[in-house]
């Protein structure tokens, strides 16, 4: 059996590591830390005389939509380059917006102006043409695709959703 000194040491050491770990996690995940890391990254690229990845020209953003279930209505494609605008689904602050008549299966939509940087792409199959993604309670009744999402209910954060300008595949999911 452990002695009381060992028990006390176990309790104090474990509590200490837990609180220290949680505090460290809080500090490391704060917006201030992220800003400092981004600044350090930027300085690194400058000192190496390299163009940061966000400014490299990788070609126009060309979105291939897959899995469109019918040719009813329109497809609406929104490209966001701003995290807050993307997370608030703010259509006023998109980097690019294109609408086209829906085609069953796959179709490609190109944004000629978006040649560099990273974008979160949102595609809506607006079957009834009301310029909105319709819902039944919490589940969408129309098709929706977000870059890097794996289902119609998956709502990836900006950092997972973002893709480099260039050819991109986005699957349109139906619930």
């Amino acid at each position, binding site marked *: *059996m452990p002695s009381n000194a060992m028990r006390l040491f176990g309790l104090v050491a474990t509590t200490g590591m837990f609180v220290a770990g949680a505090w460290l996690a809080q500090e490391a995940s704060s917006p201030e830390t992220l800003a400092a890391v981004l600044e350090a990254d930027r300085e690194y690229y400058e000192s190496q005389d390299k163009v940061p990845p966000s400014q490299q020209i990788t070609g126009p953003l060309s979105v291939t939509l897959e899995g469109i279930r019918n040719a009813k209505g329109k497809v609406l494609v929104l490209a966001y380059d701003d995290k807050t605008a993307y997370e608030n689904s703010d259509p006023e602050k998109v980097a690019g917006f294109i609408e086209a008549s829906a085609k069953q299966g796959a179709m490609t939509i190109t944004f000629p102006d978006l040649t560099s940087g990273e974008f979160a792409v949102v595609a809506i199959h607006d079957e009834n043409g009301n310029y909105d993604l319709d819902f039944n309670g919490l589940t969408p009744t129309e098709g929706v695709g977000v870059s890097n999402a794996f289902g119609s209910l998956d709502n990836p954060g900006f950092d997972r959703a973002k893709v480099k300008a260039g050819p991109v595949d986005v699957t349109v999911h139906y619930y």
Partner: protein
Amino acid sequence: MEQFFAPISNEYVSYLETLVNDYFFLIALVYLAFELVRYAIKKQLSWTLIGDTITNYITLAMFIVTAALVVGLFYVSTFFYVYQFAIFDIETTWITVIICVILADITYYWEHRFMHRVNFAWATHTVHHSSPFFNISVAYRFGPMDGIWPLLFHLPLALLGFHPFVIFFAEIFVQVYQTVLHTEAIRKLPRPIEAIMSTPSHHRVHHGSNEKYLDKNYAGIFIIWDRMFGTFACEDEKVVYGLVTPIESVNPFVAFFHGFYRLGRDVWNMPGFFNKIGVLIHPPGWEPKSKPKSPAE
């Protein structure tokens, strides 16, 4: 460095958890086939070993059914309930996930030690130790209540401010690492690794019924917790796997329920109410200091 510090979505972490768990189950089956071939070559393959392996997966199925019935939604909702009272404001990033895995590993150490040294928790964990063999299928040998204890022990992480999905991912990560340790095919790893990480060698010791190996090497990922808290033992004599009192059966029902049967029997036979409670909360094999006379005497 940005990718480590930028926020990631909790749903994504949850998706990864399922992915890691499911794919690893398949990888483990392939590895089991390799181990069985190895035993066949060494002429150690027996019908008992095959029966025991099948029993391991049957206990897994029974564990999943009991876990789904008893724990299921209750488990997830308890974490989200506690998470409301978070002390720290922790955004989910890869750095956060790594810290959470380390803390979950310390948690695993204490939970595991508790399951060995407190009789009512040992009643379920003894199932895992009741196999006289040591291969990757033993890692999937679970007892009826093995889903309950992780809940209690990991709740403080939610109270500290880690998102429940991040905690579940960390639990699965530690569990999957632990699973890999159940093999005889890897003897010893280079010394720096043996010094810091929990290895198959360390975990063979943990499964030993040898006197010097009892209640040693509880660690999940890092063996340093055992070294720190005085429960470390090195593998230097041949390990005799299984329980001090073996179950000597490959019957899945015997394997799954023997812990509660033995606990019930010991409580029943112990005279005196407080001594009965004592049997429940003390380590396995406990006896009161002064044996009370039974009332009949």
